[in-house]
């Protein structure tokens, strides 16, 4: 059974331009439910209660060190990413820890965000938005692309079967 730490945005940039009916956080909860239905334990940082005298970085570390086997980053287009960027920086800073614990990172990215062409993973988002994902991809990640909501769910069901 895998223990999956689900990262990613919580909100869309603008409700009017939302590419999906559910918020990104609700999508992550749905993805967690798909994993749970296959016997894995999957959780969002937002759903773990804050502890007294614990800041966000300490909370991130506690969760990461709590038996996590896989980190799953959900990366849709048109989402507010600032909090996710912070999480990606934290991941990059914990490169040795991730390697030491043998934690795999899966990047579930929309086809508008990144692509694999001719054997190279390319970030399609421009400017500062690309920097963080590029840095995380440099750690050695498993990119999984999706285009539609149905596609995303199918990819998650396949991933649930792939995880140990």
């Amino acid at each position, binding site marked *: 059974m895998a223990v999956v730490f689900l990262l990613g945005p919580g909100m869309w940039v603008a409700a009017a331009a939302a590419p999906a009916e559910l918020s990104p956080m609700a999508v992550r909860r749905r993805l967690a439910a798909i994993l749970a239905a296959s016997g894995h334990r999957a959780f969002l940082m937002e759903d773990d209660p804050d502890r007294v005298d614990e800041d966000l970085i300490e909370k991130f570390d506690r969760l990461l060190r709590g038996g996590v086997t896989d980190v799953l980053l959900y990366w849709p287009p048109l989402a507010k990413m600032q909090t996710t960027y912070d999480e990606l920086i934290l991941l990059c800073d914990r490169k040795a820890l991730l390697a030491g614990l043998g934690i795999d990172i899966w990047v579930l990215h929309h086809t508008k965000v990144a692509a*694999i*062409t*001719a*054997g*190279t*993973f*390319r970030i399609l988002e421009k400017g500062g938005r690309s920097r963080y994902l*590029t840095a995380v*991809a*440099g*750690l*050695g*990640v*498993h*990119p*999984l*692309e999706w285009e539609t909501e149905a596609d995303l769910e199918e*990819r998650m069901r*396949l*991933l649930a*079967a*792939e995880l140990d």
Partner: protein
Amino acid sequence: MILDLLGHKDYLRILLALEEAPLRFTEIQKSLELNPAQVDRALAFLRKGLWVVPRTLPAESGPLRVEYRLGKRGTAFLASFERFRADIALQERELGRAEVQELQSLSR
């Protein structure tokens, strides 16, 4: 999906090649003598079904190269495919030598 896989020789050859060890795009291209468009098309299909699992190779800077390994689905499929190949070899007289040999010749 499985019928699509069976219907494309390139897809099968790539899965068989990955049975030995993880490979990068150019390694697949060279070892199987395929052109880049063939490899790109095949890997897009194989990634989508998680028959293969891509992984970016750790890099501080420069292009993020991708390596492929067999996924659990790919491994399970090959186990069935190898049993099919072994069984079909026993039916050569009825099926025809050329057809059976074509299937047997698919290798790494």
